[in-house]
């Protein structure tokens, strides 16, 4: 991982789990697998705190443990997962997706599990039902069975999966020691068990849980609250038959969904709505049969596509054929034709689509940062691969002097690379070809790192803004609390207005400005993450197809 990734991971860890976890996490990121004592010593943190941090990290699936380099008898070593930490940036998007697919219940299920890392089904159902009841009108409540329904649908569509079983350390040790002879030494580092390898991965346990969500009492009476808490505790310890079966969010599945959405929306904006619906149907048909890392979907015939199209689209058979031809001819190459049987066999070129989307992203970055004429040079180089400076000037139809300036700027930003080809072995400039070229993959990697840096900067800036205005924020929070308590006790409006005036007009203005800034920064984080997702998928797909 790079310095930028480590920095961003540190910031994210601090934001969600506090500074101690940040220190431990960043140290683990920098030094790879470490044992508990080494970690405590090197971070000069007390052993108990380090233990707590590791518990938190393991709970959230960000840290793996296993027998260390010194073999099964040696101390347990911990290894942190950089990618998983970066997913924290995408939490809002996962939750939003769950909401759009499965409504409020799905949203809360995903939100709870994301926040707690892993949970049993019964505790998820209870918490979510309680939370939904809290938001309902008086007298209404959420039935557990409804939440269980949403949960099981999320499992059926693989958005949730069981956490891979963790053997007690002894079991892990014995297993690795039997397979140790065949494994290369590189495999001595903790091997995460793949959740998919578990046959029960998507199997729902039988749980006995009936009832409705409970409303938390808001009365200030300490005694009733106390007894309520006691009762809640009793209920929580109640056996539901799924103890020890923990569920986690299947990020891979979410990423597949995001990738498909990206392809569909790209088709919609490149061609039209109808063709995007056709591609959506093709993707849905192959969802089950295509492995996650495949370069293209399983081929489906035009007949099958026609049958699978929802009747509400009103696409006739001849029109479908025309659309498919159009999609195949499109230079973005989202859809490919692999054969003629069954009215033509069609696939969705997943990796090609990602590469094209990434290329479009690169082009638009160049365009927004350096202007449309630089983007023209960039596109020219992408298409023609290698060009001499003179050729660039001619093909781009830009005056030589300006073209030179733009080309050199792009070169200094590393968006364009220079290839020297000497005619004689002495590399004399007069006898050397200087060819300019754009390498898409390294450039995408560069841009990805820039994105990580940008998010890091955004977070730093937000922390700075919050720190600068700490006093104001605290004051407004205090006053809001006073107002709320006054309102609850039924105070007069004059009294309320008086309290409200404790924040002066300029202070109010400052707070408003701060809120505006923070909203903007947060929103930018979310949107940079979309670019990050696209570039990451492209880089991963290029790595897997090689």
């Amino acid at each position: 991982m790079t310095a930028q990734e480590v920095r961003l991971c540190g910031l994210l860890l601090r934001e969600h789990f506090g500074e101690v976890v940040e220190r431990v996490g960043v140290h683990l990121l920098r030094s790879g697998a470490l044992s508990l004592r080494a970690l405590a010593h090197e971070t000069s943190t007390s052993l108990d705190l380090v233990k707590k941090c590791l518990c938190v990290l393991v709970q959230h699936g960000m840290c793996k443990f296993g027998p260390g380099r010194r073999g099964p008898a040696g101390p347990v070593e911990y290894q942190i997962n950089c990618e998983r930490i970066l997913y924290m940036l995408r939490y809002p998007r996962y939750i939003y997706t769950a909401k759009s697919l499965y409504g409020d219940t799905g949203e809360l299920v995903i939100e709870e599990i994301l926040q707690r890392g892993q949970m049993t089904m019964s505790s998820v159902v209870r918490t979510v039902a309680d939370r939904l009841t809290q938001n309902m009108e008086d007298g209404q409540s959420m039935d557990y069975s409804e939440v269980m329904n949403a949960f099981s649908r999320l499992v059926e569509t693989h958005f949730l999966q069981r956490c891979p079983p963790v053997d007690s350390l002894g079991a892990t040790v014995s297993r690795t020691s039997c397979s140790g002879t065949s494994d290369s030494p590189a495999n001595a580092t903790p091997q995460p068990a793949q959740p998919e390898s578990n046959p029960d991965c998507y199997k729902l346990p039988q749980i006995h849980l009936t009832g409705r969500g409970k409303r938390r009492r808001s009365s200030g009476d300490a005694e009733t609250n106390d007894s309520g808490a006691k009762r809640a505790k009793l209920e929580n310890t109640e056996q539901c038959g799924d103890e020890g079966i923990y569920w986690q969010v299947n990020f891979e599945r979410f990423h597949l969904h995001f990738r498909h959405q990206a392809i569909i929306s790209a088709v919609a904006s490149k061609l039209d709505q109808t063709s995007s619906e056709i591609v959506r149907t093709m993707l849905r048909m192959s969802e089950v049969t295509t492995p996650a890392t495949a370069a293209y979907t399983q081929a489906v015939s035009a007949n099958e596509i026609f049958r699978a199209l929802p009747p509400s689209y009103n696409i006739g058979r001849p029109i479908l054929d025309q659309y498919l031809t159009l999609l195949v001819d499109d230079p973005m190459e989202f859809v490919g034709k692999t054969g003629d049987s069954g009215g033509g066999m069609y696939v969705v070129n997943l990796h090609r689509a990602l590469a094209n989307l990434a290329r479009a992203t690169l082009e638009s970055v160049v365009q927004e940062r350096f202007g449309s004429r630089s983007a023209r040079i960039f596109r020219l180089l992408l298409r023609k691969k290698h060009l001499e400076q003179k050729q660039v000037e001619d093909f781009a139809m830009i005056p030589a002097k300006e073209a030179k300036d733009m080309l050199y700027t792009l070169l200094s930003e590393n968006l364009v690379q220079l290839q020297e080809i000497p005619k004689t072995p002495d590399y004399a400039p007069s006898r050397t070809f200087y060819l300019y070229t754009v390498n898409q993959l390294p450039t995408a990697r560069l841009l990805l790192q820039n994105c990580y840096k940008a998010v890091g900067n955004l977070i730093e800036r937000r922390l700075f803004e919050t720190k600068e205005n700490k006093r104001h924020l605290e004051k407004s929070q205090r006053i809001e609390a006073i107002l709320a308590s006054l309102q609850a006790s039924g105070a007069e409006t004059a009294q309320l207005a008086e309290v409200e005036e404790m924040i002066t007009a300029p202070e109010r203005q400052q707070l408003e400005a701060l809120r505006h800034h923070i909203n903007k920064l947060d929103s930018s984080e979310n949107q940079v993450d979309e670019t990050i997702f696209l570039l990451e998928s492209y880089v991963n797909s290029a790595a897997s197809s090689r």
Partner: protein
Amino acid sequence: MSGRGRGRSLFTFNVDCLGFGRGEALPSSAQAPSPLYPPMQFRPVPLQTGEEVEYMLALKQELRASSKNLPFHIQPSAPKKDVGRYSDKYQTGEAKHGEWTPDWSRLPKELCIKVQKSRKAKTKPVVKSKKKPAAPKELLQKLENLEKKEEENQSEEEEDEKKKKTGEEEEEPDDAEGYDEEEFEEETDYIMSYFDNGEEFGGDSDDNMDEATY
């Protein structure tokens, strides 16, 4: 070399092939770091807006706020105060969404923190001070022998070194787990107190021991 005569002494090659015409001024070399916030040639495009963006923004801020109240947000240990105040125990531990008990079957055993430990650690120094004067010189000698034996065991030695590194204040509570029970019950037992005392003593006069051993 021939270029020098013609007044173009700067380079040993023809500058024309870099794209600079005759008589054109070459760019000056940069000697300062580039500015922290370089002026932007083009203004960035505005952010996307819409219901989806607004909702994600609200989700993000809500997540951030609630993560502070979850038990996963670990507070750094507070600096020790001069006096233990009566009010202390009423001021700590507010605003947490309930405690979190991890499922220890899914975690390595060594991560488990014993709760009673803090109480024992407190009472321990008293016991220690009582016994220390009773430790005679020959005990030290025996201890050294013991340690030499231990060193023959490879893994033990590693563990030992690590302990020395991590320092005594972390070592002590850990040992407390193992021995405290017996220590409290059978304080008169010679072997027990002898062994335990050795741990303590070794920790206390670490430097001395090192000199003697190596």
